[in-house]
């Protein structure tokens, strides 16, 4: 039976995932700041309150620690809360409830209490958001034992991974690259904006489907270079590969924790070259983890040093956003350099 497909942007895909889970499972509740009547500042929860009721989709006080704390309690009871943190930049008041509570409840109670909750939050830059609307804090979360960290790069993955997250029996942090909500982004702000309406990854099944965690997606297949990336950087990598004409594997990790190490190792062993990309600041970033694994598992296949292109170790600037952002130019340069090595 052919699945009915619909063209969706990432906001609509996320909304569809939430709507499907709320329809299927009365234990799914959706809440956060401005999430209820208004439908969220990015509109990801639009229409859910009207359709599913005030008691299932509602506004919360502006207290991220409180939002995640009540979600932990609800999840321990047996519900499947989906909490929205308006921007990842504001998640830190809830960090303790994530790191010390949600992620450890199963372990410390030896499985007696669990926290099957999903935390959705927009991440990343490229929207003139400055320090308070652009951060990419994924490494602060992948470092936590007991938490899964997921980051889709397109509408199709966003929906399948979000449904999977809600159905997962462990806490999942679901990071939404906000620059990709409406379309892919090349990393060059001067290029015309694209949208998902004509993109094949914007073609999304209307019904229920899931995408497994711990499974990377080979975004582009090549022979000469492996680019490890996730979120917005997948599209920057694609543009840079086009610009440089280098035949590269672009590995969209999607699931940072747990990580699909096999896909990474397979690709680097094939190409012998590896470039690691992320928007987040460099030092102790997730790239460091990737590089450590690649050098341990692919050392004898490597022909050149592994290179990483990241945000600088500064707070996210406002006026100098495009000097900070690891955009098309910097990524292209890095590709050229590796290939010349």
């Amino acid at each position, binding site marked *: 039976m052919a699945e009915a497909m619909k063209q969706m942007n990432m906001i609509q895909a996320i909304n569809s995932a939430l709507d499907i889970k709320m329809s299927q499972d009365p234990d799914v*509740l959706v809440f956060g700041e401005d999430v209820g009547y208004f439908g969220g500042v990015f509109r990801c929860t639009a229409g859910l309150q009207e359709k599913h009721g005030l*008691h299932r989709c509602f506004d*919360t*006080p502006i*207290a991220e*620690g*409180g939002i995640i*704390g*009540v*979600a*932990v*309690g*609800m*999840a*321990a*009871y*047996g*519900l499947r*809360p989906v909490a929205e943190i308006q921007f990842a930049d504001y998640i830190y*008041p809830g960090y*303790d*409830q994530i790191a*010390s*509570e949600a992620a*450890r*409840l*199963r*372990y*410390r*109670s*030896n*499985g*007696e*209490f*669990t926290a099957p909750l999903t935390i959705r939050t927009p991440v990343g830059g490229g929207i003139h958001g400055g320090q308070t609307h652009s951060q990419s804090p994924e490494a602060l979360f992948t470092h936590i*034992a*007991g938490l*899964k960290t997921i980051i889709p790069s397109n509408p199709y993955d966003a929906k399948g991974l979000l449904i999977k997250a809600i159905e*997962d*029996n*462990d806490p999942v942090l679901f990071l939404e690259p906000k620059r990709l909500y409406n379309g892919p982004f090349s990393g060059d702000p001067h290029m015309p904006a694209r949208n998902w309406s004509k993109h094949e990854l914007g073609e999304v099944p209307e019904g229920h489907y899931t995408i497994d965690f*711990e499974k990377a997606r080979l975004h582009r297949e090549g022979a000469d270079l492996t680019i490890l990336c996730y979120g917005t950087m997948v599209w920057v990598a694609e543009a840079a590969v086009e610009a440089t004409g280098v035949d590269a594997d672009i590995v969209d990790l999607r699931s940072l924790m*747990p*990580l699909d*190490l*096999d896909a990474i190792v397979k690709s680097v062993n094939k190409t012998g070259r590896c470039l690691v990309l992320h928007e987040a600041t460099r030092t102790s970033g997730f790239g460091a983890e990737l590089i450590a694994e690649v050098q341990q598992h692919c050392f004898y296949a490597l022909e050149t040093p592994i290179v990483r292109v990241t945000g600088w170790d500064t707070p996210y600037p406002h006026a100098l956003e495009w000097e900070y952002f690891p955009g098309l130019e910097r990524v292209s340069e890095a590709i050229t350099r590796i290939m010349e090595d």
Partner: protein
Amino acid sequence: MTSRKNTSNLSNLYVPEPEFRPGDLPDYSNINLNKEKWPDRPDPLVDAYETEPHATGLVRALKLNGETYGQWDPKLSPDTLRQALRHMLLTRVVDKRMFAMQRQGKLSFYMKSIGEEAIAVATAMALEDTDMVFPSYRQQGILMTRGWPVVDLMNQCLSNKADKLQGKAIPICYSVRDKGFYSISGNLGTQMIQAVGWAMACAYKGTNEVASAFTGEGATAEGDFHYALNFASTYRAPVIINVVNNQWAISTFQGIAAGQSRSFASRGLGFGLASLRVDGNDFLAVYAAVKWASERARNGGGATVIEHFTYRQEGHSTSDDPSAYRAKGEAEAWPFGDPIDRLKEHLIKLGEWDQEQQDALIVELKAHVRESYKKAEAMGTLASPTEINPATMFEQVFEEMPTHLRRQRQELGI
């Protein structure tokens, strides 16, 4: 307690200090418990603001001489009162035994609840067994009351092969779901807002359960406590927010967390929550207050904040020596008496108990605790090599073990 050394000629910064420190003679003659008037018992569905006198006064039912007083007396049967006495005594006997065994190196750490037993035991007796409690580490009396075998508590503290948590948590961080006892976090305060989430889930599901959360007065300064009051108020959650004010947070006196507030209970009023301050050494008053709050919650009246006014008679934990920061004799001078002695006096006054029965009960409980300890010790202690399979370290991180953990387990050679 008011403050003494709170100004300095070096600066205008005000830093409160307790009335008494080592070297001082504790004197509470300014507190005259016989002269005060205690607030009456309002209807449980009263408007929250009408509990202002209860939040700043003190709810009591039992005088120090064992007689009852006023409207809060829950008029429990002598059998029920004897049960309460038994649970409180059992808690105390277990605490003393575990403290002694820690001193012998059999467990890494322990925390006693001596002087605070009425709060836990009355809570457990006033609530339904299905009402989830979100405890801090001084409510082991709830487990004693709800009938968790003492040997299981000991196995957890000894981290031995019979510990159902498989040594994953430090001693006293119990998790006993089938006794309505939520997994204790070592991080203070976090359970308060989780209890509100649990209560919201109860309301969402339309069950008649309530949740009951506990924090020490010191940890009320954590954001989670304030989140809990806010969310409980907003969503009218069926939850009881208990603050056990035992005057001390390790070496820090209650005035550091309280600021200029007159009571911890009155924190609830600003959030529009019913709020009671209760004599925490008065079993009858605690029982009556918890009943009142649970009735309010079950009938749609929302949350209640209860401050249990009590005193931490001993050190904070086995790692603590309070003589370094507390005046000698403060525990003895504390004017609210001991909760076990007070309930015993009450039963004797009723003609339902005597000292001989009391002594016999203690002998019986000590024998039970000794037997339980022997059984637990036979399953291993911290002093003996662990018999917990190292492979279990990697279990229960997630429901299913991801590849990286399987690889790390192999790296460890198992």
